[in-house]
């Protein structure tokens, strides 16, 4: 449904998006991950036809966005970042306005409004002014706008931003449910959301795609981790012993002292964290150290995220 090829966007001399390609089929939910300023919103604005790309190709539902924007926009529902709304309208009239611009008139329009009010749990605020809504309701109102014409393609820019945990959960479930018969792209910087809702994820950093795969595939790109706390010797010497174990990739020390070592042991790719944990256990009992904590983690998305992206605050 969505095909994006070699998308580039320059603002002056700054390249915000640099050769991004991806495609999304019906029934797929694509998670768009990346630190702030990575170019997620800019990419989405180009796909929805708001920004004109510096170069590249966008096809939505088989229609070229650059050649035939009005037609291509028809099949897209879009939730912009920060969920903008006309502050002087009521929820009902706002949705009515959006429905009309989508070509829904008369009874079809009223039916569409009723449907999205129900889907997004907005019936109680139908006649309330948008201005007086709480943030969660505002967000859901803008979300409702994006599905008013039951589009084949949904583009959601940080759909769970600023919601409380219950609302986040609801929105995630909604995305997952709708993803069964739509092509959905949503951006986030919350990694658990990707695991919860996405069938595939793209990590983008400084305008470039740095990883692309299912959440499970992405996890395998990272190192498994064994967290340990060991007492009974100087931290430095415990660390030195652990480093000698075959299959230990790297050690990130935590709080260590003269009689304790604590830290995270990164496992070499391809080795199982369980094996390393067993070896550490053996080492500790051989040395008569007290093993206070031994915990294995599979590769975590945020580890991978951290290891392959650099936030804009980093030097």
């Amino acid at each position, binding site marked *: 449904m969505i095909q994006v090829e070699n998308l580039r966007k320059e603002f002056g001399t700054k390249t915000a998006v640099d050769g991004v390609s991806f495609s999304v089929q019906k029934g797929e939910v694509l998670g768009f991950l990346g630190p702030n300023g990575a170019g997620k919103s800019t990419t989405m*604005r180009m796909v*929805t*036809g*708001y*920004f*004109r790309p510096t170069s590249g190709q966008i096809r939505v539902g088989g229609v070229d966005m650059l050649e035939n924007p*009005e*037609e291509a*926009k*028809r099949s*897209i529902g*879009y939730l*912009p*970042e*920060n969920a*903008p*709304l*006309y*502050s*002087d*309208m009521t929820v009902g*009239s706002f949705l009515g*306005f*959006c429905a*009309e*611009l*989508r*070509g829904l*008139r008369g009874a079809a329009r009223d039916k569409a409004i009723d449907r999205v009010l129900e889907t997004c749990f907005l019936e109680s605020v139908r006649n309330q002014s948008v201005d007086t809504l709480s943030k969660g309701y505002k967000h859901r109102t*803008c979300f409702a*706008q994006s599905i008013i014409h039951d589009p084949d393609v949904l583009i959601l820019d940080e759909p769970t931003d600023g919601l409380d945990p219950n609302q986040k959960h609801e929105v995630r479930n909604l995305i997952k449910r709708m993803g069964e018969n739509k092509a959905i792209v949503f951006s986030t910087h919350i990694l658990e959301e990707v695991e919860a809702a996405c069938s595939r994820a793209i990590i983008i950093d400084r305008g470039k795609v740095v990883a692309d795969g299912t959440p499970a595939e992405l996890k395998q790109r990272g190192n498994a981790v064994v967290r340990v706390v060991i007492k009974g010797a100087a931290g430095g010497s415990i660390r030195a012993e652990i480093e000698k174990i075959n299959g230990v990739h790297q050690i990130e020390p935590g709080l260590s002292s003269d009689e304790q070592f604590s830290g995270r042991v990164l496992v070499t790719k391809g080795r199982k964290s369980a094996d390393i944990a067993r070896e550490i256990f053996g080492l500790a009992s051989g040395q008569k150290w007290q093993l206070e904590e031994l915990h294995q983690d599979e590769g975590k998305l945020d580890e991978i995220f951290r290891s392959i992206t650099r936030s804009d605050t980093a030097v």
Partner: protein
Amino acid sequence: MNSKDIQSIWSVFKREFLAYFNSPVLYVIVVIFLLASQGFAFLFGRFLESDNASLTQSFFFWHPWIYIVLAPAVGMRLWSEEQRLGTIELLMTMPISPWHAIIGKFKAAALVWLIALLLTFPIVLTVFYLGSPDRGPILTGYIASYLYALGCLSVTSAVSAFTRSQVVCFIVSVAVCILLTLIGYPGIIDWFVKSLPASLEGGVRFVGYLSFMDHFYEMSKGVFVFRDVLYFLSVIAAGLMLTGLALRSKRA
């Protein structure tokens, strides 16, 4: 223009006009306009003393000065507010042409002025009560006045596309409208002609010809010249065109 275009324009127009209607803007502007236009007419225009029962000198004469301030006050929210709220991103990703939105919004602001102008009817009734005026000049006066308002509005529409701040839009629009008015003011033109070398007279007169005032003045005297109407229509078209270009450049 097919029916889909008309419906898109109508939807945008309706929303925008309701925004005026549901906010104090419409009422405040209309009331101030009525007070100012009638006030000027009676206080400075010596409306009651002038014995020729016409509205040209006393009533329409003051309208440009009122529009200079009030038209930007009506138009400043057109695109600035849209950019401040971020709703422009919604509007521009809808399956409509940007021109639908530009025209729909402009029409809503234009309707505000139509209402304001129509509500000045008591003064027309008064002239008819006091004497038997020529109908022609009154009609052309109203047309000229309305076109003037729309000219200022189209300037404001263009300026509002450049900024997300209504205040900035208001100040810049007022300045541009003053400029476009003053460069055609007979006294000012004469002053320039006198103080500049004679060889530049043609240039000065040409610049004066481009001003709102030049065209307004002729029409408000009752000379309905197609050329002047065309002039204002071109100004409006240019203003809306510039609005479109500014919006497009922001998305480029």
